[in-house]
């Protein structure tokens, strides 16, 4: 069963989160709260789809690193999808691409397809 809302979508035990076009401290914290609430409800897989995200600033990156840490602490799985080139560059500079699976589309991430990490959409 799929439940689609403005900022997230539930697909079975997976939740897909859709951040805004700019991830700063405020948007990052909103995303983190949403993610935490789903983990507490028993969702084990979190997909963050960045298709609508143009810019992730360094504070947003910090929040995302914290989210990854939290999901892992709760034995969950977090995946990224729909990254624009510049956001892939940002994650690559901070070294996140070595620690997280990145998929081209949210469908790939939900399905857990093999092609990952480095598969990006163009800006």
């Amino acid at each position, binding site marked *: 069963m799929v439940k689609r809302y403005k900022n997230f979508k539930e697909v079975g035990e997976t939740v897909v989160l859709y951040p805004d076009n*700019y991830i*700063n401290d*405020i948007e990052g914290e909103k995303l983190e709260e949403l993610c935490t609430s789903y983990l507490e409800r028993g969702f084990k897989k979190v997909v963050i789809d960045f298709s609508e995200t*143009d*810019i*992730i*600033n*360094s*504070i947003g*990156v*910090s929040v995302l*690193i*914290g989210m*990854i*840490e939290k999901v*892992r602490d709760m034995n969950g799985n977090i995946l990224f999808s729909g990254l*624009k*080139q*510049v956001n892939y*560059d*940002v994650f*690559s*500079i*901070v*070294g*996140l691409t070595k*620690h997280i699976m990145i998929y081209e589309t949210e469908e790939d991430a939900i399905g857990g397809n093999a092609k990952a990490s480095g598969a990006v959409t*163009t*800006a």
Partner: protein
Amino acid sequence: MGSMRGTVRGGCAATFSPMARIWAGVVAHGFQNGRYDSGNEVVWMVSVKDAASPVNTGDVENFLRRSLILKENFRAARLSRWMVGREGFTAEAGKRADTEGVFSSDAVQLRIIRENLEEGSRASRKTPDRIVPVREFEVVLPSASKAELVAARAVEEIGTEMGFDDAAIGQIKAALVEACINAFEHSRLKTAKVFLRFVASADRLTIYVQNGGVDFDSPAEPLSEAPSDGLPRKRGWGFELMKGLMDEVRVERLRGGAKIVLVKYLVEKGDGRNGQEV
């Protein structure tokens, strides 16, 4: 030649009576220092003797007398006087002109001047093909939520106009956002503004981000500890992001603040190197 008709740059004309049938004259207005105001106006009075005999002292005295009358009409302006004789000047006439600060030229010198001017003119007409003029834009950001996105939008327009591809523009926007955040964080006052200057030249875009604060973060500052499970550290990525996304990043200390300079080089569209190290 019946009269001396002033040929004028700048939309003003003057006429004065003939000195001799063999004489022609020109009055022209110019401006020095690239400023078009009365303080920088220069009026050139030029007379040409187109005759088989050289300019003599009588000709010079006549010209000086008339130039004095003309000077009354252009009190505010600096007057430059120039006599040209097809056959040159007598020794006395040349000395007299020199004493009075009047430029003097013969036909050969005039031809050389004309050729040089024409050559310069041809070269300047070619300039637009070779050199793209530098354009500058300035943006002032107030201390407001997401103000840095205004800077990102501005640089997107400038970068697109310059010919950067989408990937490079994305990198510039992200780096600029980091610089603006850093500038706001380190401003002395909560209401301080951040001043941006974009300089678009033929081969690069240079962005100056200036605050009124103590400093910017620098990479030498202590960084936050990395999480225990091997994930990257959480904080202190601002400068590393800027450096990774731009071709050059430097911080210039200023009195009462600091300035960060971001540079992105422009490479030909389609060669896939915009946004990469050149």
